[in-house]
């Protein structure tokens, strides 16, 4: 660890983590295409990754400092920098050795504003990387998600079931309508395109799938299929294995928020008691949020 004396001078973020695969999983969740740029925001609370597409879809990954075994942030404010998400994930992947728990150290900024990563396991073997960062582009919309009314419009569904439903809706394609109804309490996904497909989650009939449900008046919004699909297409297998739920909330104007929880627990604990791992280490969860803008009315007519 002391071998990087040269780099230590410039870095005001030094953090170490012991579950590389967990972070790879969390970041892969928001990687809906191969080449994707991310905006990274560093603060005393942790690191936030923001990815967006054409002003209609935005995703955030929150890596709170509790996920790291060491997290030292010495600067003021919240520096932001741009980075290729794909490159970072591919690079991080080389640090993850199946069957080994590997510890890595991340530093920012390097002498040339790079992001520096290196393995911190052994003195004789070392993997290292330097990734060039960019001056951040401004985000085209940093949406403050606002609740639609006094009662939140939300439901929590098993992540596996949500992914399956959205995968199935590929066939009608293009535009998907999500309808929340208080009586009977239910959520409907409806696709119209090359044909019709409707998937209903009935709250009382499927309490094991639809875990929670809040809705006091009927709402219905349409979302582009490709954006909806991006929210679930790369859910890591650990989320499905851990039998986790995803929370969907509809905010003002039909803005859809999709939240997933990805475990970044140490591999040793997550191997044995998958279900209890989350409870034992409640803080070792990466929070993932997607924001999807609804389709405009005239667009739906044209479609």
């Amino acid at each position: 660890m002391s071998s990087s004396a040269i780099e230590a001078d410039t870095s005001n973020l030094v953090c170490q983590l012991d579950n590389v695969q967990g972070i790879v999983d969390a970041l892969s969740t928001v990687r809906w295409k191969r080449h994707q740029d991310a905006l990274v925001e560093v603060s005393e609370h942790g690191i936030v990754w923001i990815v967006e597409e054409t002003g209609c879809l935005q995703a955030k990954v929150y890596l709170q400092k509790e996920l790291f075994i060491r997290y030292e942030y010495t600067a003021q404010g919240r520096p932001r920098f741009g980075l290729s998400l794909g490159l970072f994930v591919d690079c991080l992947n080389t640090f993850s050795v199946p069957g080994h728990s590997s510890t890595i150290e991340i530093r920012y900024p390097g002498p040339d504003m790079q992001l520096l990563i290196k393995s911190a396991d052994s003195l004789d073997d070392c993997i290292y990387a330097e990734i060039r960062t960019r001056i951040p582009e401004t985000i085209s919309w940093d949406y403050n998600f606002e609740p639609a009314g006094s009662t939140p419009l939300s439901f929590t569904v098993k992540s596996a079931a949500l992914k399956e439903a959205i995968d199935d809706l590929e066939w009608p394609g293009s535009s998907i309508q999500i309808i929340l109804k208080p009586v009977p309490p239910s959520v409907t996904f409806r696709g119209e395109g090359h044909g019709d497909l409707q998937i209903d989650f009935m709250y009382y009939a499927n309490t094991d799938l639809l875990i929670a449900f809040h809705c006091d008046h009927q709402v219905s919004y349409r979302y582009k299929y490709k954006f909806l699909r991006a929210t679930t297409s790369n859910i890591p297998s650990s989320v499905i294995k851990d039998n986790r739920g995803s929370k969907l909330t509809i905010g003002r104007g039909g803005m859809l928020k999709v939240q997933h929880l990805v475990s970044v627990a140490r591999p040793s604990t997550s191997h044995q008691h998958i279900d209890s791992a989350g409870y034992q280490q409640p803080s070792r969860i990466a929070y993932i949020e997607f924001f999807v803008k609804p389709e405009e009315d005239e667009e739906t007519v044209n479609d």
Partner: protein
Amino acid sequence: MKFKAFLTDNGVSLLDRRFLPALEKMGKICHLFLTRDHAFFLHNLLSTDGIQSIAQFRKQALFDDYRISSQNEDRIAFAFDISLLLRAVRSSVSICSEFGAAPAPANRLQIKLVKKLPPNCTQPMPFLTFETKGYKSAVIQDVPISKPLSRAQVLELQATLDAAQDLPRTLVQVPDLNRLQNFVDRMKHVGDLLNVTISKYGNLHLQISTTLITLGAEFRKLLVVGDKAQAPSEDRDLSAQTRSERAIAMGDAQSVQVSVRHFSKSLQCHLAKPDCAFYGIAPQGACLTVIFQFFVPGTRLTDKSISLHCRLPVLDPGSS
């Protein structure tokens, strides 16, 4: 031109479970070069690009009752598709093992070179024929092969083979082949060109550099075979890159650039289950060589009847 031999049980297991699966990863088409004493499986020896692999077996390692004759000093070479050979060997094995309970000597697997007239053809074609005698049945499988190489081509093959025997001056032992392969396979996503530096101190340093990223791995204190030197003590506190640069400047290391895909392919040879592997850079940085070592089962002695090594073409002479 005649070739006929019986594959021994040991030969079958070497080919079926170890060498053919490994060689298949090197490339679909391979040359089989048979001499009075040896059988060679060769990849890319007659072409200038691509990774060369040379698997050499003493005839006793694979065969029994080995008979070869040709007008070219009893040397025969031809090209074939490895996957077809592997299928023929596998199916012969399954026929043999079906009757495995029967006394062994009856289930012999004979291979021979034949010319046959295939259906719908007017010209006879060469085949490597596998003949398996089971308990009640006999199965013959014909693996199509190329026309045997001409005398000139065989000479060229022999000459390249002789030239490929040059050993690098310094070889370092790979610590953990599986782990290294895992790493390099993931590295492939990041870039195409890999810089490999090998020092007399026992350092193996791999690095990919593109405009956006530098990703590398350094393994130190590896076992060195050949020229070695003591690492300078001030080396410890340096970064991997600086360490390599200094070693090169002092003439204690060489560096070459190879394709990541070639490097990863060379690691696939672990399918042949070698006992250890060594990397070295050929004199003048002509190529990156990897040598796999096989022990006599149950010992730490080199099995001299089997050898396997690969030569990776160098894309840029580097700083040798």
